[in-house]
């Protein structure tokens, strides 16, 4: 068991060195999150991956050790026929319980942060999924639609484009301010998914989902329909552009003039 303990301590040290040495949390291939909500998810993801890797490395190590150290060398030698060890069994039941308690605590903390809604969002967008496209309706304080961006007709759209290419709709969010999304579907279940925001939510018939985005990075981010929704599921793309609030105001103003003039059907 001395070997084991040394091994466990060693893996822990490596994990700590990774974390403290890098100053920032390692991504393990994930997005850091372009919204405050996405960053909360990222923090949880990174720590849970570290914990998961430590556990996995320990268990793989034990398997490898058992396989190598106890391989059959002498076919005539019979191993001792023991079948239990109560203290060890109690330990390997209790430790996972404690780990779960800790990650559950941080999970609930993160999910409350991600799902929280501010009472007075800077903008409100009604996102509607349909086969096979999206519409983004900007609402005023009274809930009246003042501007609209949506998938160009006629469908099906061009094949195999990039989500950010101009064939697909692009909606705009103000940087640093909180926008509330009101998500719906008119036909089947769709998945409103923005990878860089570390967020997806179903657009479902009969259900309205509300959630907030508070972008912290400007830029253009691709979006997909994540939930399979029929023939042209792969083509149900969109993108989001995050701009400074002043630019957002100008954009929204020109869009609403266009909308009011009937240029957008």
């Amino acid at each position, binding site marked *: 068991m001395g070997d084991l303990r040394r091994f466990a301590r060693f893996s822990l040290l490596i994990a700590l060195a990774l974390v403290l040495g890098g100053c920032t949390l390692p991504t393990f291939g994930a997005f850091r999150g372009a919204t405050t909500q996405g960053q909360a998810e990222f923090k949880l993801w990174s720590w849970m991956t570290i914990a998961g890797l430590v556990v996995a490395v320990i268990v793989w190590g034990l398997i490898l050790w058992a396989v190598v150290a106890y391989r059959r060398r002498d076919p005539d030698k019979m191993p001792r026929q*023991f079948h239990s060890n109560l203290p060890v*069994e109690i330990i390997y039941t209790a430790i996972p319980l404690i780990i779960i308690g800790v990650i559950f605590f941080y999970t609930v903390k993160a999910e409350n942060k991600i799902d929280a809604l501010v009472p007075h969002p800077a903008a409100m967008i009604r996102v509607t999924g349909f086969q096979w496209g999206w519409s983004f309706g900007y609402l005023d304080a009274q809930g009246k639609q003042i501007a609209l961006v949506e998938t160009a007709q006629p469908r099906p759209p061009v094949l195999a484009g990039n989500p950010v290419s101009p064939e697909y709709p692009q909606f705009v969010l103000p940087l640093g301010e909180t926008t509330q999304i009101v998500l719906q579907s008119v036909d089947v279940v769709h998945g409103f998914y923005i990878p860089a925001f570390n967020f997806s939510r179903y657009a479902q018939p009969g259900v309205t989902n509300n959630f907030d985005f508070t972008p912290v990075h400007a830029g253009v981010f691709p979006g997909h329909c994540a939930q399979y929704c029929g023939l042209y599921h792969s083509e149900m793309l969109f993108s989001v552009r995050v701009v400074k609030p002043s630019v957002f105001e100008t954009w929204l103003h020109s869009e609403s003039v266009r909308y009011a003039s009937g240029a957008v059907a």
Partner: protein
Amino acid sequence: MTLVAERPVVFDESPEPEHEQGPSGFLKWITSTDHKVIGKNYTVTALIFFLMAGSMALLIRAQLASPDSTLLSQHTYNEMFTMHGSLMIYLFVGPVSFGGLANYIVPLQIGAPDMAFPRLNALSYWLYLGGGSMMMLGFLTTGSAADFGWVAYAPLSNSINTPGAGPDLWIVALVLTGFSAIFTGVNLVSTIYYLRAPGMTMFRMPIFTWNMLVTGILILIAFPVFTSALVMLWCDRHLGAHIFEVSGGGVPVLWQDLFWFFGHPEVYILALPFFGIVTDVIAVFSRKPIFGYRGMVFATISIAALSTSVWAHHMFTTGVVLLPFFSLMSYLIAVPTGIKFFNWIGTMWRGSVKFDTPMLFAIGFLATFLIGGVSGIMLASPPIDFATHDTYFVVAHFHSVVMALVMAAFAGFFYWYPKMTGRMLREGLGKATFWLMFIGTNVTFDPQYLLGLKGMPRRIAEYAAGDGFTTLNRISSAGSVLLFFAVLIFLINTFVSWRKPIPAGDNPWDASSLEWSTTSPPPHHNFLKIPPIRSQRPVWDHNHPEHRIIEHDRPRLGALAASSGGGTVLLDDIGFDDGDPVETRDLDR
């Protein structure tokens, strides 16, 4: 029960094998109620569905190997992933375990002459074959096979969005296989409760049999819900029932609740049999008793219990489920699963581990399942699920899990093939299959975790070159070629063993449970005589009387037991003792 009445009186001295009455050859295969024949029918049928589903997977990987791919049309691609998932989940992984291996092995492991309801057992098989064929017939309809994903989410699965006979065939096929599974569940549970040989107490059953009991109970909890939900869906499509339609006051998300109330226990219906195989294989090839046997049994039962209260972790992003509850319940499953891992490691610990093909597959299962388990804990966290739901991260997660189960299925297949056929499979070819499958699995599916994190959604027929998904998809597709060769070499192996048999003998692995005390293949009604059952390892006790299990792990007592020559010193795992000192006994109860 007629079975008991028909059982022959067999004498210890000169047992005469009972000759099977009835037809032989093809007629025997289609008319038999013998659990061994039905078990083989199931296994071969399931393997054929596995090959079909595997070919579809190769097409899927070929399509995704390059961006802007036009190998398959979007429509064909949607059919391919729908039917790949449906065949693998409904027609292969489940039926091969509870219909194939369990059907064959469970009666043998508990010393029973057959399943409790042999005709019901035959009905299960024919419903399964009929249902499976019916699902495949969808390809021959004008509108093509079902293409709404293996989960058939409402309202995509209604008659407006997916009209035609193909989806209807899919639904009715699953009603048939649903009944098939329910009947098999009834049969397994009754057999294990009522047909155990004298001395085979519950806590002496092999873990495989234990897990099949729990699987049978889970089938009875989950499949009726699914089968009725399918009937509701059919009524929605044809009778305008509006159960899952907003327009008529229905609730689409109800389908998801019903489906996953079946779907998550289904994951453990698929997994538990293979956990059982791995447990028994590891113990046999480590020459040790199972470490923490009772902990293992209670872990299995708690996994089954918890699995009925975690279904909405598939629905975290619907916005209409109670996140903390389903998250906590899902996390909790990690505890009994962890116990199992440590049991498996503890069984190898200080053992004498031999790397025959079944054991290699079992170790491959451990290594791969761990990846699926750890990523599963992450997905049980709603925030992480928000970021990865419906992406290739999830695809990678459950393929790590199911490919681990496939490895465990191969462990079981290589382990029991000698018992089923009386022939050995070739070790060299078996090891080649293992290494190709183990490396192929990780090359195919590990890159998909990264694809998911980069934002590649699942079930998309194509992606653009600018998406940045190309390299990882190439690696993944290359891995699928390795898996193709793994399965090809396995088929060659069975062919070689068919043409150039190597006789297996009764107990080629020096195994410990009852099926290894009878001939390979076993006679009609299974046993001519049964060794006394005084522990979890009756055959081992018979073959190695000086190496019985050490109770309470006290070496002194173990030495005492060994010196007394067995027999009178009771080394039972639980206090039950039938008190019968006779070494072998006949089958007449």
